[in-house]
């Protein structure tokens, strides 16, 4: 029982990342009709927003300490972050320590700008082209973006730790009556799950309870009629692209302490997120979220050694296996709408 609870917890945080990326993908597909293979790159850029802010906050002045030596035996150049000079050593250290949460504020405008530039600069020219063309151009864009990141940040993962306050793990088992140490879970992963829930809730509330959201939903249902009513739906859809980019970026920012960011992390999530969108139902926002969590949990269960012992290799194919089964039994996905991708 404790193993099952543990894997559900595992699946929830993994599913959170899938759900956030798939949510953005679905928003873009539902509004603009574009299959955006560069969406994983937006997740990766978000993670590098955390790396960048962390580096900005750590910009240092150097002085030569004659009493210490570097690896060649020369006097050591000691670095002192300007943040320590400006805010004092304690406050400065605390600001650097909280670089990842602070990156949320940094990432939102950056990601919206990246999203809008991407849409206006490249993707809008492919609206009327076949989906295959859209996939090719956005996949190419993803490769370009990751190579740019690799050029500036290198190929190795860059450690971007969570604030010290969130280090360590929570003994969930002890709280619900199991033995100590049977169900432990890192604090930051719990934060990630809560953060994802807030973002998903906020996106749904925005679409459901604001006039802007209502127009966007109307545009998703019938773009032509909304245009005939004199509403500039294209402008709103561009803003939705920016919003989707921001959601993917924020997912990346908060993911940085879980796995050290590297230039390839977007690609690692991209294919799985597309499977999530297809399983959830093309164009269905609740479907994307539901499928994200569902596949995250299934993937976790498939990684249990008891399961691998019975079905070797199942951990590597489970998501695709489930996708095949669901698409065979429900061709539109779990919550797909009639008419989407069926013309």
């Amino acid at each position, binding site marked *: 029982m404790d193993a099952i609870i543990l894997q559900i917890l595992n699946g929830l945080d993994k599913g959170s990342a899938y759900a956030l990326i798939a949510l953005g993908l679905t928003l873009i597909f539902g509004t603009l009709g574009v299959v955006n293979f560069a969406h994983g790159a937006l997740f990766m850029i978000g993670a590098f927003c955390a790396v960048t802010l962390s580096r900005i906050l750590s910009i240092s002045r150097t002085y030569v300490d004659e009493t210490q030596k570097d690896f060649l035996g020369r006097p050591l150049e000691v670095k002192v972050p300007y943040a320590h000079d400006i805010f004092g050593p304690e406050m400065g250290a605390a600001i650097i320590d909280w670089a990842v949460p602070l990156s949320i504020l940094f990432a939102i405008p950056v990601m919206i700008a990246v999203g809008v530039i991407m849409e206006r600069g490249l993707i809008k020219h492919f609206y009327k082209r076949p989906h295959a063309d859209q996939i090719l151009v956005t996949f190419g864009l993803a490769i370009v973006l990751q190579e740019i990141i690799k050029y500036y940040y290198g*190929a190795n993962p860059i450690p971007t730790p969570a604030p010290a306050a969130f280090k360590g793990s929570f003994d969930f088992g002890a709280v619900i009556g199991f033995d100590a*140490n049977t169900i432990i879970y890192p604090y930051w992963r719990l934060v990630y799950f809560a953060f994802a829930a807030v973002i998903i809730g906020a996106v749904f509330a925005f679409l459901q309870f604001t006039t802007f959201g209502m127009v966007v939903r109307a545009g998703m249902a019938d773009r032509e009629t909304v245009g005939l009513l004199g509403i500039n739906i294209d402008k709103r859809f561009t803003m939705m692209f920016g919003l989707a980019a921001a959601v993917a970026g924020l997912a990346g920012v908060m993911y940085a302490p879980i796995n050290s960011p*590297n230039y390839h992390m977007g690609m690692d999530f991209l294919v799985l997120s597309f499977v999530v969108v297809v399983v959830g139902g093309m164009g269905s926002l609740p479907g994307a979220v539901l499928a994200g969590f569902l596949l995250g949990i299934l993937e976790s269960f498939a990684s249990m050694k008891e399961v691998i012992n019975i079905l070797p290799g199942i951990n590597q194919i489970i998501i695709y296996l489930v996708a095949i089964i669901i698409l065979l039994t429900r061709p539109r996905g779990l919550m797909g709408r009639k008419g989407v991708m069926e013309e």
Partner: protein
Amino acid sequence: MSKINLTRRGVLKTGAVAGAGLALPTYLSAQDSGFTNAPTGSTVTLGFNVPQTGPYADEGADELRAYELAVEHLNGGGDGGMMNTFSSKALQGNGILSKKVEYVTGDTQTKSDAARASAKSMIEKDGAIMITGGSSSGVAVAVQALCQEAGVIFMAGLTHSNDTTGKDKRANGFRHFFNSYMSGAALAPVLASAYGTDRKAYHLTADYNWGYTTEEAIRASTEAMGWETVAAVKTPLTQTDFSSYIAPVLQSGADTLVLNHYGGNMVNSLTNAVQFGLRDKQVNGKDFQIIVPLYSRLMARGAGENVKGIFGSTNWHWSLQDEASKAFVQSFGTKYGFPPSQAAHTCYVQTLLYADAVERAGSFAPCAVAEALEGFEFDGLGNGKTLYRAEDHQCFKDVLVVKGKENPDNEFDLLEIVEVTPVEQVTYAPDHPQFAGGALGSCNNGA
């Protein structure tokens, strides 16, 4: 219409001149003919096949820096680096056999097919006489087999799988880097001393060739000293989040986690394990411990503070204080501004060893070079006394057991050397079961 006048004297004269003309170049190049890419001009071309793109691109870049430094030193530039400390004095700083050393590079992408294609191109189009480099055992095995077929020498870069000089060994291939067996043999006594002989280990193993041989080696060594292996789980090479593999570890009753991972896998699995607080737990009345059999400073940097206090092994480390290591660090550090990695070290050493073997053999012919390398004993290249064993083309030397440093002095000071395990402790018989299968075969001079 023209008329041809053939006379006996004319035919003899023409024949004599033509015969002399044909014989002269044959005589001049007699020592360097009959093998692939025999150098004919004043230069010789080496092929550096390293990952320039892909996940190990940073390690590949460091390998390339080392190769460029080696070429500079071979051609008489710079401060000479380890050429000054090398026990063999055949290298004079005037290239190799008085031919200036030039090089071409290929990108392995850490993919076997891409690595073979780039090696093939360097051999066939660029005329490379020797191929070296790489940061993966899969790549090393694939390129080694290609070099065997093509008739050129392969001086492996970073490859740690037993199979490179075990079941997949080739007569044209040589490895300076240590291997999984050596890691196990060096680590086990240190682990027994630090953590006791009554431990329950849980292995997470990368699901490919290197992972298997490393798990086998570490299990054999630790079980021999009394540890019990409670589980060994294969993890996909493409895995990035290891939480679902790490979460069940504590429930298994294990008190030690062995991460048979390298590169990005190691960074992520170690980070995840520390996030789960495994090292803060007590199991079976003991502090929970994590072990990383193969350490790399470049990878340790990616894992950040998570490496602190964690044992592993490494082929070489820049903080070694022997004269050779100091000379190499001085040379590399002055040129590039930071200390070299173990990958850079093994690549630099392999280049010098190849050049030295050519000088001693007096020929670039692969079989002559192989003969010069086989059974060659040397010193002064940073690992103490070393033997290139003839039976399997594996270097035997001391192995470093290291630990993530608790209080680093600078950004490069991530690992501390715990023990220099003597070569006798990591030496094994050529027919050891972990290296069974395959045969060296005979060397191939190619064309």
